[in-house]
């Protein structure tokens, strides 16, 4: 569904994305994880055409992204922070989206609108909504046009446990319909029963892209959080791990004194 070939992106000196290639297929829930600033959101924005990569190509449905916006008709996107025109009412937002996407009434997926009970707040202006309610609106909008590809950036952050559960159920239901779902999240326990594949990014580089079963077997941990923590620790031993740095320091000083 989505093929990424060697994309790189620099923000001034920072390598946000460094030679990333991957193939994302339908019927999977792929979660994109990594520390803050590892390039997760940048990668998503590259797929959506919001950020233009310096090098590399991205294909969505075998169509290369090159400025023609029509491929986005089949993508639903839920941003990390959803902000909408202050004076627009919730109902108007949905009407507007329907209007600009030229969607017919039959194709619409109103599941989340009903489950989140958004109809009750349809005549409230967007500016009066709390952060969590906005998240619900963003989520309902992403699923509204039943797209083949769903990109959810931190979907459960700010949602109450009940709504978070509703959203998770919806994601699983969509997965069964053979759609591709790409999620970024820091709440690894949320991903436990959702994700089929894990992509781990660090400092803009693709560290690994594995099936969740493989990951569990390799680390011997059932919980995703623990498995990831184990891998991070192992990898960091090669890098400047705090204890090691402390060990090395006295040696360095000795060497400096000797000559």
């Amino acid at each position, binding site marked *: 569904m989505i093929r990424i070939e060697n994309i790189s992106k620099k*923000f001034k000196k920072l390598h946000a994305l460094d030679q990333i290639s991957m193939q994302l297929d339908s019927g999977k829930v792929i979660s994109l994880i990594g520390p803050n600033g590892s390039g997760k959101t940048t990668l998503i*924005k590259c797929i*959506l*055409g*919001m*950020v*233009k990569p310096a090098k590399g190509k991205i294909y969505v449905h075998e169509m290369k992204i090159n*400025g*023609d*916006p*029509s*491929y*986005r*008709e089949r*993508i639903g*996107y839920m*941003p990390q*922070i*959803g*902000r*909408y*025109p*202050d*004076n*627009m009412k919730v109902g*108007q937002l949905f009407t*507007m*989206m329907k*209007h*600009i*996407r030229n969607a017919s009434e039959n194709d619409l997926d109103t599941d989340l609108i009903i489950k989140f009970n958004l109809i009750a707040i349809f005549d409230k202006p967007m500016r009066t909504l709390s952060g969590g309610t906005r998240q619900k609106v963003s989520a309902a909008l992403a699923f509204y046009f039943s797209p083949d590809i769903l990109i959810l950036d931190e979907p459960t952050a700010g949602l109450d446990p009940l709504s978070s559960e509703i959203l998770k159920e919806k994601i699983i239901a969509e997965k069964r319909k053979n759609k591709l779902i790409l999620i970024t999240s820091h709440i690894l326990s949320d991903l436990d029963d959702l994700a089929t594949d894990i992509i781990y990014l660090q400092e803009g580089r693709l560290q690994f892209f594995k099936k969740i079963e493989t990951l569990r077997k390799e680390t011997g941990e059932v919980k995703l959080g623990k498995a990831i923590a184990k891998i991070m620790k192992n990898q960091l031993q090669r890098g400047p791990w705090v204890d090691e740095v402390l060990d090395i320091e006295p040696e360095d000083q000795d060497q400096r004194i000797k000559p």
Partner: protein
Amino acid sequence: MMKLSKYVLYDILRSKVILAYTLFLFIISISLFRMEENNGKAMLSLLNIVLIVVPLISMVFSTIHYYNSYEFIELMLAQPMSRTRILLSEYSGVALSLISAFFIGVGVPILIFSMDSTGLAMIFTGFALTLVFTSIAFWASVKARDKARGIGFALLLWFYFALIYDGLILLILFSFSDYPLEKLTLALSALNPVDLGRIFIMLKMDVSALMGYTGALYQDFFGSISGMLFTTGIMLLWIVVPLYAALQTFKKKDL
């Protein structure tokens, strides 16, 4: 494109800022026409309002609107819509609301109290300046990354066009007063839409008689059809060029 700008326009009209601007212009216009016995005098005072306030409000309002709808633009970018279409919809929404505010606030009083060639020239100039400075503001805000810098940049440009440019022109005129400068000043006026608007309106008024030989030359030029076309053409360039630059930058920009 109209679909989206309809919603942008709707959002702007719902906020009170544009209503306050309309009311402010309307009260000033009405009170000027009521206070001055001679409509010509009222027009002269109104001229200064139009030349100073309209560019300032257009600039500041457009810049703030752009930054406030940044997340909305992001949301639209995730929809199947091209960047050109998104920016043009934002532009037409903002421009249309500012133009309607100007028309109700200044245009209608002029049409009631002093509908002649001067009045029409004033309305024309007001429309043109609104569009020009909205274009420039969009260009400035697309270029600058954060809000403070964008508004600062817009204000600086306004200062330049409304105040500093005149100072520079005076400096040139004084330093080279021994040479015939009429043609040169004519050309220089094209480099500033505010000055162009001022000359265009002033020459429709009786005061142009006070401007001596230069005034006569200007009258000769701007009074003719070619002068009209010149003014319209230059104003159009001032609208299109910054907007085009803004579109080019916006297309390449990371959001």
